């Protein structure tokens, strides 16, 4: 690990900041269509932490919707600058919270180890073929062929 916790981060304008008193449990890129809207046309890059270890300070806008997975997901963002902060699964409970890598003070904290929802990526998407690629969510079939 490059850093021992706690890890810190903030939005673009600094209105929201956070500390995380845990080490990441994973990191991955997500190309679902919702995430492409959230990530300005790219994949979101998400570092996963136990939800109870993440402590946000500041006003956060949230939107709940049914994700492509069918899960009920809450996305948090800064209402002042629009930076995307996190995604967490409300139903079913117990899944790790996805902190957007760009908000971490150290975006190098953990490199993505997998790519999910590859089937909805645009044809020009640069996807690392040395990482596991999943057609949909992390429980969906692995894509075996080389791109």
């Amino acid at each position, binding site marked *: 690990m490059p850093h021992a916790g706690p890890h810190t981060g903030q939005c673009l304008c600094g209105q929201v900041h956070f500390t995380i008193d845990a080490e990441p449990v994973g990191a991955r890129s997500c190309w679902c269509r919702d995430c492409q809207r959230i990530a*300005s046309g790219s994949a979101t890059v998400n570092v996963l932490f136990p939800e109870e270890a993440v402590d946000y300070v500041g006003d956060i806008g949230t939107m709940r919707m049914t994700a492509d997975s069918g899960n009920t997901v809450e996305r948090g963002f800064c209402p002042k600058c629009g930076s995307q902060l996190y995604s967490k699964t409300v139903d079913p409970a117990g899944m790790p919270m996805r902190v957007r*890598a760009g908000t971490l003070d150290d975006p190098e904290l953990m490199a993505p180890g997998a790519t999910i929802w590859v089937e909805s990526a645009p044809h020009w998407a640069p996807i690392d073929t040395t990482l596991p690629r999943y057609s949909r969510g992390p429980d969906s079939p692995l894509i075996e062929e080389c791109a």
Partner: protein
Amino acid sequence: MTAPYSGSCNCGAVTATIAAEPVWVRQCWCGQCQKAAAGSATNNALFATDAMAITGDVAWKGYTAASGNTVEQGFCPTCGTPIFGRNSSRQGSWVVRLGFLDGDHGLKPASAIWLEEAPEWAVVDPALEQFPRQPPPPPPAS
């Protein structure tokens, strides 16, 4: 696909149609864009604003970029979806985030900029024209 292009945010509060082709399409890895793109690069198509028709409220937040220009990011205040970017040096045109555009719009980045700020794990298509920082401005129209 060709113009007109349509776009919508994740909650549908903001929509737009754009009746023109983009001037350019490129991706940006600057640190501010990584915050607007959930850790990735923003992917941006520059359009003339007089070709845009927008419905719904767009929230804007500005900052002073490394160039000294004022850059503003436009987003949906209800769901946070990044929608636009505008730069004080580019009057009359805004970038539209590719994720905001609907359907199989066919637009894709031709270059990648501010690579010196990209994280080590960034995946960049080697076929793209690449710039460590801001690319030089286009030559003046003759």
